[in-house]
């Protein structure tokens, strides 16, 4: 009897059962074109094709992807590079398994009919920003320029800016910038400042997991990352199909969705994922990492940053 039990336990321990591979990937915001690649990979079974039984958990205002990872409620997560580094600083042993967005989409927007012509004109003016993760680049910029701005926490609606309550506002090129256009602003009505052009080109969305997760099954982590790229490749090759899928999902989640906005978002995601090179890649270069890490340190965002090898897992086979 004991031998039988032992055998069963042993075999259970030695042969990882199928259910052990049911992984969860949490996204860092609500379903939208920003996450088309992941969602399409799930739909098309790319994760399964690579041997990973993956479920995607959509993010949102109540869902912090990093926290879910930390709490073990998800195995993989997407998040900004700066967020992951910050978490590392707080003690979460998070590792990087694949960089998806290679170019920063963060920008500042002012109205052309205002008197803000150069960034220096923002001295002493009201600038809208989101939470801490999104304030690193702007703060670094203003420090470099030697100006001080009044930081106002901005709501997602861009309403305060539209009503003239802010002189400049933060926006993601693929999202809030088009929101402004959807309010009737022409591109000529907006003066834009892209952080990618201001030596603050932080790579953004990437795939992360806890070190334990990676050590336990690096192949799975790699599979997740590769399948994600497959998803993005498929999305770029079939944009209309991707759009349909996104709209469907968003409606399913009762999220406000319109084609024009998602189409814009998808096109911009392609721009920042390809970043000038149509061959999709997962690698986060040492240069990009160390540049971002340095800014983070300088801004006092984090005291010490992990070394490149210690943080970026996909470089090691």
């Amino acid at each position, binding site marked *: 009897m004991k031998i039988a039990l032992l055998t069963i336990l042993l075999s259970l321990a030695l042969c990882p059962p199928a259910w052990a591979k049911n992984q969860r990937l949490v996204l860092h915001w609500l379903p939208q074109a920003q996450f088309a690649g992941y969602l399409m990979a799930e739909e098309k079974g790319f994760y399964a094709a690579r041997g990973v039984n993956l479920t995607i958990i959509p993010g949102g205002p109540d869902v912090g992807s990093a926290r879910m990872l930390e709490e073990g409620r998800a195995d993989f997560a997407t998040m900004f590079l700066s967020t992951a580094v910050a978490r590392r600083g707080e003690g979460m042993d998070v590792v990087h398994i694949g960089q998806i967005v290679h170019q920063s989409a963060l920008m500042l927007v002012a109205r052309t009919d205002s008197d803000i012509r150069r960034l220096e004109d923002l001295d002493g003016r009201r600038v809208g920003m989101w939470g801490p993760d999104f304030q690193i680049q702007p703060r670094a910029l203003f420090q470099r320029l030697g100006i001080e701005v009044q930081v106002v926490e901005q709501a997602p609606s861009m*309403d*305060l800016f539209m009503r003239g309550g802010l002189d400049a506002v933060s926006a993601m090129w693929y999202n809030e910038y088009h929101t402004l256009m959807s309010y*009737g602003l022409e591109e000529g009505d907006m003066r834009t400042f892209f952080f990618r052009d201001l030596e603050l080109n932080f790579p953004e969305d990437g795939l992360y997991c806890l070190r334990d997760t990676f050590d336990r099954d690096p192949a799975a982590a790699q599979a997740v990352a590769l399948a994600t790229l497959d998803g993005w490749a498929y999305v770029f090759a079939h944009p209309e199909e991707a759009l349909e899928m996104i709209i469907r999902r968003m409606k399913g989640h009762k999220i406000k969705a*319109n084609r024009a906005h998602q189409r814009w978002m998808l096109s911009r995601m392609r721009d920042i994922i390809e970043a000038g090179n149509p061959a999709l890649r997962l690698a986060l270069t040492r240069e990009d990492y160390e540049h971002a890490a340095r800014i983070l340190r300088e801004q006092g965002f984090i005291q010490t940053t992990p070394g490149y090898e210690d943080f970026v897992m996909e470089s090691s086979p």
Partner: protein
Amino acid sequence: MKLSLAVRLSALILACTTIIFTLVVGYAYVVSRETIVDLARQNGAALAQATANRINAQFLATAKVTDTVAATLEDADLSQSFLVDLGRRILASNPGIFGTATAFEPQAFTRDQTYFAPYSYRQDSRITSTSLGSEGYNYFAKDWYQLARELNKPIWTEPYYDEGGGDTLMITYSAPFSRRTPRDLQTAGVVTADIDLAWLQKLVSSVQVFSSGYVFLLSRYGAYIAHPDPELIMNETIFTHAEDLGLDTLRNLGREMVTGKAGFSEFSDLPGVGEAYVSYLPLPEERWSLGVVLPKAELLAGVNRVTHVMTGIGLAGFTVLAVVILLLSASITRPLRALTRAARDISTGDLDQELPALGRSDEVGELAASFFSMKASLKAHIASLTAATAARERIESELRIARDIQMGILPKIFPPFPQRPEIDVFATILPAREVGGDLYDFFFLDENRFCFLIGDVSGKGVPAAFFMAVTKTLIKVVAEREPDPGRILAKVNDDLATDNESCMFVTLFLAILDTRDGQVVYANAGHNPPLLLRGGRPPAWIESLEEPMAGAMPEVEYGTGSLKMTAGDTIFLHTDGVGEAMNTHQALFSDARLLETAAIQAGSSATDLIRAVSYAVTNWADGAEQSDDITMLAVRYLGHEKRS
């Protein structure tokens, strides 16, 4: 291209009526359209205004209440219970308000509380109170708080879905309130009133605009608040809608509406409607805008229907008109063609063709009747013409014969007596066109006596010719028996006058020359005197004895004159045709000119003399028609000695 009268007539009339009809219908259509569109513009604007007013009324009421509350909060004694009670009372007395909150600035209510925002709202049929603000809900960054606070004035937020997870569309009016501090007035927070927009969406969707028209509502940023397509509401702005469909026209409409303009535009491809007019105006209170969509097809249905019917009537009318014209013109051209055929037959000489009987009394009938009478008179005319021509030809042939006979009996061989050198005789007759009655003759009575004569029968034609022949013959017969010219003429006269029923008369001059000594005896019955040309002397007339022409009355006595010719003398006899020859100016040759001409020819032979006079007369006439015969006979005595 030769088109028949019927086709040309039809084509012209139909073309004209088509043009007129098209102009009339076209004008009516255009004017009607304009009128209807104009009416639509007015009605659309009125409808939009009415709808807007109803919306505004509700919103204004809410704003007023909230502003009042904000004002009272300035000096009121604030306690939690007061505020909660305030909230409940607001709800109780304002059924349109769904919820109300009084949210304070951080530490503004109590120093140890960051968030303080009592909030009362309706749940089912009760009023519930709660408190907003926590770690998970930072209301300072929410639009309803932040906008009023940062802009420091009352605002209407953009519509949003109730966070309770419901499908209710809400809008919040937020008014900042201040609190008096020892130093100044400081913003202490905001008072809010939430309105549920379900009633608004129902109001808008209940507005009847034809059957496919509708009213839509846009927020200050163009987001669809109310629209018949629920997919659009709160999902799209008019700009994303335009972007998705690639419609610049829609984008422009959005810009117009969002910037608070009022207007009336035409669209050819409005989504879901197609061709339509949009009447739009702003709702300034909350910077919304309202549009009324008037589908063109329905708008113009009436006009189009009328126009179609009119066109249908027109086309039917044309068909009838065409048929009538064709029939009418055929009824004209058919008889015309028949008459044409008849005319052609007649022109070939067939006058016996029966004319088509038309039995009409109008112009065509009159034409046929004229044709008929024309044919009849043509026939008669041709018949009489033919008869006359035949008769004339008969007469002319008789006349020709008469002329031939007449000329035949006059001696024409010259010299007539070559073996008699005592005399030189020449004669000529220039006949007029008409057969005349001039005659001359000469013959030897015996060996020594030479008779010569000239005469002129009164009248013309066959009777004159006949009489002339009779006279010539008679004279010859009488002269052979009677030596005295006077008695010869008397006898001839008696014979002619007796059997002369037809009143023909003849003038005569008869002379007998004795060739032995040149003695001449003569008689004259009313004939113009001859010329005697003696050598060395001017020509002189041989005086008339004033005796009448022969053939008038019998038993007239004629005297005999005598003269003596010497060798070289010439007697020139002529008829009055010579002197009476007219030129083109109707001037006579005259006896004077004859004298002149003869004088020049003194000493000439008889032939030369006559030829000269003949030439002179012909020259004189110069082509004028000769009305009378011109007869000349010249006898020149050469003397007895020549004969040997």
